[in-house]
């Protein structure tokens, strides 16, 4: 049974350590993707056309190529370009994974935030501008705060996808949860138990998030 492996396998610490790395990847990746996503959303609604094009190009490129290809590019190509996040291999792998995950999901966050910003009533924006607020003041004081409410549940959905996608970090040498399962499987040959334990830990991670998103959706539902 899975319990036997988690509690009796000599390398039982692999699972909690893997889970901890998965959580670190998810949290750092989510923060990065939200910050970057908001910036790109602002580019996409900018009044200046070339900025809009840059934003659109970013979103389309990162949404329409596989995350794995992006991770491989960061992992193999950046050192070739002379960019190294760290001389320590483990730290480098981890940082490349966080960066790749953040870049990829930022494209989705940007689309959601853009939708939220465009969903703000135009009259609000025009009123703010006619009251003499500059474009930046209007963004900060009027448009962004109103968009937050409609944006939180979809970002929660992206966070769930992100937590699952951290599994891909294993392919560039980050010893996260799925990699822990690989090690245990290779040492014990008990495939079903090793991966069932991994699956249960992923469920422990993602099912509460899904429940939380559903709850938030009901709480924040804007009556239209």
């Amino acid at each position, binding site marked *: 049974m899975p319990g036997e492996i988690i509690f009796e396998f000599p390398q039982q610490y692999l699972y909690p350590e893997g889970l901890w790395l998965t959580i670190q990847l998810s949290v750092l990746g989510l923060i990065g993707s939200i910050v970057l996503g908001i910036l790109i959303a602002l580019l996409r609604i900018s009044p200046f056309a070339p900025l809009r094009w840059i934003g659109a190009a970013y979103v*389309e*490129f990162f*949404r*329409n*190529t*596989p*995350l*794995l*290809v*992006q991770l*491989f*590019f960061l992992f*193999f*190509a950046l050192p*070739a*370009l002379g960019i190294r996040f760290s001389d320590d291999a483990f730290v480098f792998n981890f940082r490349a994974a966080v960066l790749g995950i953040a870049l990829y999901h930022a494209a*989705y966050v940007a689309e*959601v935030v853009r939708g939220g910003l465009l969903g703000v009533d135009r009259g609000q924006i025009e009123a703010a501008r006619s009251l003499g607020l500059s474009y930046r003041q209007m963004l900060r004081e009027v448009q962004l705060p109103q968009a937050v409410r409609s944006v939180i549940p*979809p970002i929660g*959905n*992206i966070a*769930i*996808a992100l937590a*699952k*996608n*951290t*599994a*891909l970090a*294993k*392919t560039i040498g980050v010893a996260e949860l*799925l990699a822990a*399962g*690989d090690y245990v*499987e290779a040492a014990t040959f008990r*495939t*079903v138990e090793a*991966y069932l334990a*991994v*699956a249960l830990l*992923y*469920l422990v991670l*993602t*099912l509460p998030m*899904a429940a939380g*998103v559903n709850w938030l959706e009901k709480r924040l539902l804007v009556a239209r």
Partner: protein
Amino acid sequence: MRQDTWWIFTDINFLRFFGAGLIQTLLLSLAAIALAFVVALVFALGRMSHRRWLRWPSIAYVETIRALPVLLLIVFFYIKGSSLLQPVFGPEFNLQPFWAGVLGLGLYTSAVLAEIIRAGILSLPRGQTEAARALGLSHARAMRYVILPQGLRLMVPAMMSQLTTIIKDTSLVATIGVSDLLGQGRIIYNRYFNPIEVFLFVAVIYFVICFALSQASRRLELGNTPKAARAKIREIQLRDQAA
């Protein structure tokens, strides 16, 4: 940058090599979506059944599979698939990595498609079911001839955008040794050590295919999709877009 390896990308033999990978990628996506559609139909109908012993296992299947990473399923079938299927195909059976990828990807997508199909069916007006039953059709026949054809047609754009996701996800099978587009790219990289060029080239090919597909599905647009179904689809597209 390795200018000395740029000839690779105009050499016909190397392009054929990448083309073989692309064909694997496309075949894998088609096989996975075919498997996913059949399984999804079963679980979508199971989840809407009035019988508890059908409904609860279906809910458990869909919600569990949706909450797991695709890579976990693919790796599991890669390692364990052969011995799981040996009772069916005989003791000599050996599951190829390609089919392990189809199983993992197909089962994951089946859970997502089941939710899409269910959203489509639930968004139909109740009058459709009631009229069919009032005309004397059994529950099964009302489903078969009235509800499913309409529900599935409503969901065609959503399924097409899911196909984009599947094509992106097939890149994961490169990690279990299938020579798909990314797998071929890695072989070239290991031979010539030109990561920038190779992975950019591969990324551009994926981009062209996925961008064309997502534009096409946007063209079909969710115009005649009811509002309730549209919200559900948007949630699915954010939560279940894997790699």
